[in-house]
């Protein structure tokens, strides 16, 4: 299965990339994806996750073709 992972704002800068494709065979949660893309960094308290543009908890299980996004607290308005 293949998913797209996107990063925004300060997270995009610290990751040095805005998006990437991940391909894997086993069932993965958002937390598993975070571990893989961050190279086992702990999930900071304030990091938010969305799947297909809706907020999810980190135990959410992704499906093929999902778009997963990680980003810091939002500061619009």
């Amino acid at each position, binding site marked *: 299965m293949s998913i797209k992972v996107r990063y925004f704002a300060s997270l995009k800068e610290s990751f040095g990339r805005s998006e990437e494709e991940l391909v894997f065979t086993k069932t993965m949660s958002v937390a598993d994806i975070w571990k893989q893309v961050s190279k086992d960094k702990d999930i900071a308290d304030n990091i938010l996750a969305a799947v297909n*543009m809706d907020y999810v908890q980190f135990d959410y299980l992704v499906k093929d073709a999902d778009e997963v996004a990680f980003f810091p607290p939002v*500061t619009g*308005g």
Partner: protein
Amino acid sequence: MNIKIVEKSFDPWGEIQSFQNSSPEMRGKYGATSIFVGTMRDFNDGDEVKGMMLEHYSGMTEKKLADIITAAMQKWSIIDVLVVHRIGDVFPDDAIVLVAVWSSHRGDAFDTSRYIMEALKSTVPFWKKELLVSNNERWVDKNTDGYKV
């Protein structure tokens, strides 16, 4: 409802007037309009700020705004809502956000505009990076709670 994400500076009063002009069916029906405009200041957290870059998650931004407005319209009695939000390079005195709510009665209009602003500030994926007069750049950490004055 009308949701606009704009890359160039916008005139909030002109946006409101255009929206009303293009909604003749509202004429004579609304008694209350509650509006909030957020404007860029030239200082923040004790520093002088000369510019700002507003990033957003295109697609999710519009989706979350529509969800928020839909939830508000289920909770209060509202005729229509307009939200305009700026992205890209922003300068002091530029409007960043406009929320306008039309309803029959003022209580619904006030409650809804404030609800939309708080939900926008806490859940809609926009991020601000400030460029200080010192030429340092910094991401804004997080928004405060607007109900705690």
